[in-house]
């Protein structure tokens, strides 16, 4: 069936795949950091778990939760990118991603290809919070906050 180009842009194959088969979808029993993310508008919820080494490298990251395809795929893809990254690299990645989905930056050359699939979000302001929920939750976990809401 004919879909609009915006729909096709937003719901790319990669996003649909991660929605259906989220990676690192599990609980880490003894995480060094964790936080709960909540988007009250659509009811998206996710619990994020991290194991960070003493020299600030992310050893493991996982999530569980319920949400729309955009938020779930974003969380799933985020976890696949973060393992082995330093906290500094993780923050830089979030900044680049945030600029992409809010349409602040056209220059996304530095951005990881797997994050670029979310470019379609910038046309739909109501969905930006879905795409960034996992990342905001990551920030909260690293700052030792228990809970974050995106409104």
């Amino acid at each position, binding site marked *: 069936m004919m879909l609009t180009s915006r729909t096709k842009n937003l*719901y790319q194959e990669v996003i649909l795949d991660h929605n259906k088969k989220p990676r690192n979808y599990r609980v880490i029993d003894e995480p060094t950091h964790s936080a709960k993310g909540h988007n009250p*508008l659509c009811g998206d919820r996710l619990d994020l778990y991290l194991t960070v080494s003493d020299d600030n490298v992310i050893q493991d990251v996982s999530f569980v939760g319920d949400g729309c*395809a*955009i938020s779930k795929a974003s969380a799933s893809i985020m976890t696949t990118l973060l393992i082995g990254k330093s906290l500094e690299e993780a923050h830089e990645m979030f900044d680049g991603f945030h600029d992409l989905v809010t349409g602040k930056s056209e220059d996304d050359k530095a951005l990881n290809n797997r994050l670029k699939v979310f470019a379609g979000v910038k046309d739909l302001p109501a969905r930006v919070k879905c795409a960034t929920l996992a990342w905001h939750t990551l920030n909260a976990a690293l700052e030792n906050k228990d809970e974050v809401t995106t409104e």
Partner: protein
Amino acid sequence: MSVTFEHKKNGINTENEMKRRIAEIRRDFPILNRKVNDKPLVYLDNGASTQMPKQVIDTISAYHTYHHSNVHRGVHTLSQESTDLYEEARETLKKYINASSTKEIIFTSGTTDSINLVMHSYAKKFLKKGDKILVSNMEHHANIVPWYMLSKSHDVEIVVIPITDSGELDLDTFHDLLDDDVKIVAVNHVSNALGTINPIEKITETCRERGIITVVDGAQACAHLTVDVQTLGCDFYAFSGHKMHGPTGTGLLYGRKELLDVMDPYRGGGDMILSVSFDEIIYNEAPFKFEAGTPAIAQVIGMGAAAKYINEQDKKFIHSYEQKLLEYATDKVSDVPGLKIIGTAENKISLISFIIDGVHPHDIGTILDEEAVAVRTGHHCAQPVMQRYGIPATTRASMSFYNTFEEIDALVLALKKVTDLFDVN
């Protein structure tokens, strides 16, 4: 409810005649002509807000153009005209819900404001520690949160009336819950999340026998059912202008006069007093003592115009048409793979809440919007309903008398695009 379309009684002999009448109604609603994403708008979010006919828009515009001034104050012509128009709206709405007096019609900013008024002016004064308020499991937050606030400040208990799997009030349990501590029963006339029409008359009858006050949230009923507060037998009835083809920022609280007379004002200020000195303040009588400050004059007049518009329609025709739409939509959406309707009560307004296996309602809403189909997705400000069914959210298509069978087809086609994309079988 079995629905037979009363072709003959209404003198409507053919489907074409029905379609002609709906096309005529649609011409009154200019917004229905607009496009979204270059496609004709299919507006199925009437549960959130109904569209205004040009009769309402013109009335509001005429007020702003010719009559605007403050009400109940000046002796000049404009102020008298404004006052007359404002009080005419009260008269129209009195008739709209068949109240016995305009003194029972209080203008508020909406259903939420109306229920808060009852909580502050009635419940805070007359309920005491240990009293109970029964609230149904299918209430909108507007009929939960004010009572929750009261329970915290006045140590009263909230007891939940459960609902059945099909989304009907569990009346047996309701009767079991009634004891001498129950002072208020708060229920909606129609559920915004499920579409269920509740048996208000049965509930109020039981409550009257026991001296329990009934607070009915009529937000979802006011455009779809003929509301007669005397037949319903409730003590308070609340609804919003924008859910009955009027503007936002208006609402109404009906209260039985004996109750309003003994209640204290909710807010203090201008227009609600008879005299003020630093020694003594004498309040005005109902309804004015509850309408402090300059009201939303233009909007109230618009709400009156909306009531007049609906009153001028053939209500019997509209009600049976909406039931036809519901039947048609219920049947058609069942073709969508993985779709399950939430709320299958016997008596429903033309509203369908549903989930689709493996697809979050938010994704459905975005894709439907691309197809110019406007629906509501989320918890519908009724999170306890979602909890009852163990789901985070639903998609809701809520229809009005201006919707068509073709628009239902457009909804179903768009839903099939969703299930195709998400590979739902």
